[in-house]
């Protein structure tokens, strides 16, 4: 039992932390978010140079054969800087779907490009009526000669517009909520019949509604096993959730640090407001929320690799429950303790709170994971 990161892992973390502290301040981030694309090609290229984009992939696929713990370290630092680049959608969720479900040829075609920063992915899984249920798929992929024709509407696809390729879950058999009958497709976002309605998200990212009308794809677009994508979808989603938990811990740490600093410097009644016990105890609770969340994020980053799907699901859902609740609590308390400044969009604190609240609404909120935890008992 040890909680010590290897030298390589510490190096990875430190170099990313330094980079973000230097290049990704609050003002720089504002400038990055403003244009339509919503993130910086320059930052993305630098991530590629730093080797971040291939951390999780095999060396054979242009990666560094890192573990889920490496991904956790990267995500925590991205969370600390509320970084908006599409690391989660491209590398974590999109990348792991291709990595887990794809054929060798598909991996060779996609992963090295992703690792080099030349290809962006987005995972189009959710639908207007699916909430967080991955099995709830009404988008259809009808057999058409050797290939398929896709029809349907995918909702809140993170970085959907900037993606070069989409990983889409679609029904090749069965009813709308059936576990069987789901298949994954890898297709060009620019394919004929794909309509993208892009928008900003409240936490400074980009997302899109994506509608498919009679989109024709070849048989080689199928990613993994036909009709049986749900298990791999769940595995990739669990990996993505564990990464989100790590991101949340980074955001919590930064938000707590900013709040505690504010308590030390803001003067009222001739003394720093941090000298008031009513605020001190709330600050301590914020710190405890963060430490307990960190513990579960660590556990999830390890157990997400478990061979036992129930153990994996329980641990990941436990972490997401805790992080959903703690993230909300820390976000709300940070705003409150910052007083009027907390509600100003000019201060970073509120932006951390936004990201934490949106992490709860990504790939399953607290309620969803309560239910999932019980079902994996």
């Amino acid at each position, binding site marked *: 039992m040890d909680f010590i*990161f290897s030298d390589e892992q510490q190096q990875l973390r430190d170099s990313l932390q330094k980079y973000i502290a230097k290049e990704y301040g609050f003002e720089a981030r504002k400038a990055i978010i403003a244009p339509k694309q919503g993130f910086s090609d320059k930052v993305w290229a630098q991530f590629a140079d730093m080797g971040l984009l291939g951390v999780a992939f095999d060396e054979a696929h242009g990666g560094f054969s890192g573990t889920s*713990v490496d991904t956790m370290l990267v995500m925590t630092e991205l969370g600390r800087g509320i970084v908006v680049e599409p690391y989660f959608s491209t590398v974590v969720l999109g990348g792991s779907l291709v990595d887990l479900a794809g054929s060798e040829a598909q991996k060779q075609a996609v992963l090295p490009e992703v690792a080099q920063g030349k290809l962006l992915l987005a995972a189009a899984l959710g639908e207007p009526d699916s909430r967080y249920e991955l099995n709830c798929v009404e988008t259809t992929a009808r057999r058409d000669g050797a290939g398929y024709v896709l029809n349907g509407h995918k909702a809140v696809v993170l970085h959907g517009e900037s993606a070069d390729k989409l990983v889409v879950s679609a029904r090749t058999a069965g009813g709308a909520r059936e576990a069987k009958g789901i298949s994954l497709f890898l297709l060009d976002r620019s394919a004929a019949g794909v309509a993208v309605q892009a928008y900003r998200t409240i936490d400074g990212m980009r997302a899109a509604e994506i509608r498919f009308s009679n989109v024709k794809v070849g048989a080689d677009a199928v990613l993994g096993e036909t009709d049986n994508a749900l298990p791999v979808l769940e595995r990739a989603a669990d990996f993505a959730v564990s990464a989100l938990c790590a991101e949340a811990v980074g955001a919590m740490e930064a938000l707590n640090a900013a709040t505690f600093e504010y308590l*030390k410097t803001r003067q009222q009644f001739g003394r720093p407001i941090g000298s008031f016990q009513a605020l001190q105890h709330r600050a301590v609770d914020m710190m405890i929320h963060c*430490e307990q*969340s960190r513990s579960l994020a660590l556990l999830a980053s390890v157990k997400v690799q478990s061979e036992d799907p129930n153990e994996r699901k329980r641990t990941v859902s436990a972490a997401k429950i805790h992080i959903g609740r703690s993230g909300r609590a820390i976000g709300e308390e940070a705003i409150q303790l910052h007083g009027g400044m907390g509600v100003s969009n000019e201060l970073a604190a509120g932006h951390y709170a936004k990201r934490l609240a949106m992490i709860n609404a990504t790939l399953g909120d607290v309620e969803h994971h*309560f239910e999932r935890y*019980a079902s994996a008992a």
Partner: protein
Amino acid sequence: MDLNYTKEEQAFREEVRSFVHDNLPKDIADKVLHHKRLGKDDWVRWQKILFKKGWVAPNWPKEYGGCAWTPIQQHIFDEECGYAGAPRVMPFGLVMVAPVIQHFGSKWQKEYFLPRILSSEDWWAQGYSEPGSGSDLASVKTRAVRQGDHYIVDGQKTWTTLGQYADMIFCLVRTDTTVKKQEGISFLLIDMKSPGITVRPIITLDEEHEVNEVFFDNVKVPAANLVGDEGKGWTYAKFLLGHERTGIARVGESKRELEQLKAIAGKQLRNGKPLIEDPRFRDRVTAVEVELMALEITLLRVLSSRTKPGPEASILKIKGTDVQQALTELTMEAVGPYALPFRPEARDAAWKGEPVGPEYAASAAAVYFNYRKTSIYGGSNEIQRNIISQMVLGL
């Protein structure tokens, strides 16, 4: 990073588990598991079994009869004992006063007291709190005035846990009223059979006799029973409070209580279905389970760090007691209206009367009210927050 126990640690866990399984008397375990009343004999019997095995004082240095276990081994031991329903080793002698004597005591104190503590020959009590001195411990008023070879002690201690059994009590006493309050305190070891000592029970909300008031009226204490230097008691007191951190989270016991809660909620019905399947109740259980999972990792993080646990350990006290209290609350709620019948006689293992309701319901409310103590004792959870605020956050 590796969150698995090593082969050696796993083997150690097996060793502890099978030892506890083979040696923990069933009647004692039954009492613990069913929240029956424990008596002095139950604790002493178990401690003597551990003493024989050489495991009663794992926190002691090896030369005094300790085990030289790693913090992780200590945790494994605590967890296995807690999970199996072993009574808690009484901390007052073994965990609290012994390290103080080892570090600051005289040669005679070490030679006389330590073996008697180790063999459970003496039952110790803690004389810290006073009626006017709870969280503000340095304000103790109990006076000790030097007269030749003796101190004359006058005053009152309170919340003295199981003081009715005690042979000895370690006390913070005021030996100097003219200096700063922390500097006038001394650390005295007092024989409970001394003339002038009166023990009066305080009955708690569960109508049990667990704590006491101890009155000192002109009590003569040999000066040889002063630990270390006069006026240094506060230093020793802080040393004592900072010494025992690992058991504070009570992970093993909470795991056991969680399992029992789930079993109870599996038997109780709501709308004709097991209560545990009711999403409203189930999710509240899950919330505690999740907190306990986090707590275990937080504890292991503290134990694995190369440095001695610092003020972060206060997190373990706060969260550990949160979890314990939440479990008693849910257990009380799980038994529904059978939380009401209050029959303290049914908590006696030898009682043969006709039960009311399921056996597991008999003590649920009493335990809930008893456990309100956990967030108050050992430095209230508010004091723990003060510690973190000052020492960790720098506020």
